[in-house]
């Protein structure tokens, strides 16, 4: 997508300045801004929708209606009204707080949550909608997701409140612990696809739901469950929302926050929820591929009918919708769990992680490996893999110029 | 839950000088104990297997004092009466003990009268004695932590005393 966009923008700037190609930097910058803006809007709008959805779901679960007043019968504009209210609220800061860290903490969380989206693809080859295609995308996403804990720790520490400090300590302990099983679970699809590139992993599951890694083996199935549990824990959702356990810690790390800064924490939380759900969809649920092979993707009848250009893009857009739908369903599942289950205690959260999730994930990884190795034609280290790598290592592969790395192009990497 | 009709006789037998008086009714019978013998009587009631009053429902203080001449006869001598309500859960028995104390150990300096604490026998007594101290001004000796439990720590006076006057002002808040 970026290539096309760059070309289009180049053409546009070229037309404007009268020289084509010389000032490509402008086009790249515009493309970068456009992509980052699209991601920002995706997170912001999904945050708006999720808050509304959460209230509606909570209402329905609790035999209530949820928001009904603002914005018509279903209260569509409730979140916007809430946002306006939060904007108008006073931005309070405790007298003893560390002003710099207290003010910065929400932005760090939001930045971490947003930047993880940079490497997340929304459709597969040949038109991967991805801001920056990385060949270590899984690793990158998990690494950046782990940075969100900083905002909580700093918020908790700088608030000069004991409840905040308790929340921050719980969060730090919890997130650092849950990164281990989360990583172990994410390794299984990586191993099955033979790549850490999310586009490759997603495309490896095309052709109907029986090709999804969820149904690859019983082990992979369990791995998905463990992954989702750990993902819920690592984004601080109930029943693992100990950092903000309101019945114990008043508000946890955001006790002292108000107004817009407080809402930024929530935007970051909903962003992370979305991120881990989309990641789960790509890693286990076929990503942008449909439940049945209807030939809408590359090489299907859609491309044959409309040509690889328009047809391909239509297919990719359809994939985007499919991926977002899968992510949304997982987010709804998280909400369902939140409004049904009591909260675990901190020692039980740690026990769940260290005694159950980590060993189960490790065993399942081993099991999935053996399963894959024992399948016909499914040997782990197929000879041509090694040959391919040798070929890569032997000679320099033509990669695009370095400045493209800021806004990578589709298909630029092998 | 019944009152044990024999208990006052047993107490008189066992602690002849401890039992000051006993009322058989008409509604709830009670036994009055001399304050200095309260601790041993209570210990016996708690620990004697035949008695085994294991449950202290509560204790409260009645202030008999009035400035009203019409009531003076009904009220009688100015005094504090500490009332203990005991129960035996297994045998479904109950018992009311009373202890009469002077209103002040030293009226001039308004030193509260003292009574031994029963908190070591029944843990219930711990908070109830605090309450009695707080509201009625009876000091319990050997209490683990006697404090004002309901009123603020720096409150002056004991509100359930009949001659109590609400302070005019408490930290800038109008009292009356």
């Amino acid at each position, binding site marked *: 997508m970026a290539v096309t966009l760059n070309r289009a923008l180049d053409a546009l700037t070229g037309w404007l300045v009268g020289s084509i190609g010389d000032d490509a*930097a402008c086009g*790249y*910058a515009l493309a970068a801004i456009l992509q980052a803006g699209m991601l920002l809007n995706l997170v912001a709008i999904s945050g708006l929708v999720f808050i509304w959805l959460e209230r509606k779901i909570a209402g329905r679960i609790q035999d209530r209606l949820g928001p009904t007043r603002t914005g018509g019968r279903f209260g569509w504009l409730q979140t916007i009204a809430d946002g306006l209210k939060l904007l108008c609220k006073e931005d309070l800061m405790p007298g*003893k707080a*560390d002003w*710099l*860290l207290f003010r*910065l903490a929400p932005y760090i969380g939001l930045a971490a949550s947003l930047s993880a989206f940079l490497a997340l693809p929304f459709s597969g080859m040949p038109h991967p909608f991805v801001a920056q295609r*990385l*060949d*270590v995308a899984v*690793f*990158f996403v*998990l*690494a*950046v997701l*782990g*940075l969100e*804990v*900083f905002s909580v*720790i*700093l918020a908790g*520490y700088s608030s*000069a*409140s*004991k409840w905040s*400090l308790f929340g*921050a*300590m719980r969060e*730090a302990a919890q*997130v*650092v612990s849950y*990164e281990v099983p989360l990583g172990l679970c994410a390794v299984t699809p990586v191993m099955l696809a033979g790549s*850490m590139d999310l586009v490759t992993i997603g495309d490896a599951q095309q052709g109907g739901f029986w090709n999804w890694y969820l149904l690859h083996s019983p082990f992979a199935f369990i791995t998905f469950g463990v992954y989702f549990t750990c993902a819920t824990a690592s984004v601080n959702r109930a029943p693992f929302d100990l950092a903000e356990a309101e019945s114990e810690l008043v508000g946890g790390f955001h006790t002292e926050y108000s107004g817009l800064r407080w809402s930024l924490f929530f935007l970051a939380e909903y962003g992370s929820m979305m991120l881990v759900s989309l990641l789960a969809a790509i890693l286990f649920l076929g990503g942008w591929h449909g439940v049945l092979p209807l030939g809408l993707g590359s090489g299907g009848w859609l491309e044959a009918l409309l040509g690889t250009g328009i047809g391909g893009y239509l297919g990719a857009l359809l994939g985007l919708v499919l991926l977002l739908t899968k992510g949304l369903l997982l987010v709804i599942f998280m909400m369902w769990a939140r409004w049904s289950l009591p909260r675990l205690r901190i020692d039980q959260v740690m026990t769940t992680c260290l005694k159950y999730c980590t060993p189960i994930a490790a065993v399942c990884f081993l099991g999935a490996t053996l399963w894959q190795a024992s399948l016909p034609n499914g040997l782990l280290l197929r000879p041509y893999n*090694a040959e391919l*790598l*040798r070929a*890569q*290592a*032997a000679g*320099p*592969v*033509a*990669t*695009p*110029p*370095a*400045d493209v*790395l*800021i806004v990578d192009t589709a298909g630029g990497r092998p | 839950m019944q009152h044990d009709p024999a208990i006052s006789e047993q107490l008189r037998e066992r602690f002849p000088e401890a039992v000051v008086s006993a009322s058989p009714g008409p509604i709830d019978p009670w036994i009055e104990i001399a304050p200095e013998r309260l601790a041993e009587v209570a210990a016996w009631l708690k620990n004697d297997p035949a008695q085994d009053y294991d449950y202290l429902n509560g204790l409260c203080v009645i202030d008999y004092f009035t400035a009203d001449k019409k009531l003076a006869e009904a009220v009688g001598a100015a005094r504090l009466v500490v009332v203990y309500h005991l129960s035996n859960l297994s045998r479904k028995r109950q018992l009311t003990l009373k202890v009469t104390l002077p209103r002040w150990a030293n009226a001039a300096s308004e030193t509260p009268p003292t009574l031994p604490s029963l908190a070591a026998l029944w*843990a219930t007594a711990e908070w109830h004695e605090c309450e009695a101290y707080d509201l009625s001004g009876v000091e319990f000796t050997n209490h*683990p*932590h006697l*404090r004002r439990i309901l009123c*603020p*720590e*720096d409150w002056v006076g004991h509100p359930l005393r009949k001659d109590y006057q609400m302070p005019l002002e*408490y*930290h*800038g808040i109008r009292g009356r």
Partner: protein
Amino acid sequence: MIWHSFFFALFAALACGFALAVVLTSNVVRMAFYLVLSLSATAGLYFLAGADFVGSMQLMIYVGGTLVLLIFGVMLTAQEEFIRISTRPAEVALAAMVGLALLILLSSAAFRVPAWRGDTPAERSLALTPQTVGPIAMALLGLRVDQAPPTADSPPNDRPGYVLIFEIISVHLLVVLVGAAYLARGRIGANSLVRQDPSQPASDLDDLADADPSGSELLEASQTLDSPAETGA
């Protein structure tokens, strides 16, 4: 190319600036925070150089792991509200000397690399960056794909990869972790934590209340209580 230079300058400036801030600030938590930013900017430089794996690794291990533990440690051990560190001039001078020496050493090493001396354009060297993640991963498993495949004349285990080193490092780290846990493990009597006798008054709590028997007791007591990391008796 202009953006590449721009971002390089940006990240480099961020990394250097926050590194300086780490040295210059006296607040431990802010120090850790500036270190986070500095290391993140360094990760940005790695991404800029096309080393995605190293960049992600930097984020995961240094920023996400080590620094979280660092801040965690600071939070757990801080005795005052916001612990401050003051350095004496002699220490500053010493640190400056060491830092300068290191800078000279690194610079001279860097200028000795032919590709970086300007003989070849920077973009060419970047464009020639081979894909390294796969081979490194395979080498960690014992398969050296960057070497020639074993033939009849060379024995197959000529270049055994990094599997042994990998394992040794893992075991070493495990030993370090276990040792640290053992050293940190303290034994204290139950009584020093738990008050055994309920009849004993909760002395220091009462001191707290007694010290301030005014109407604003609640307010002031809660303020006293709310200062973080207040130590018990």
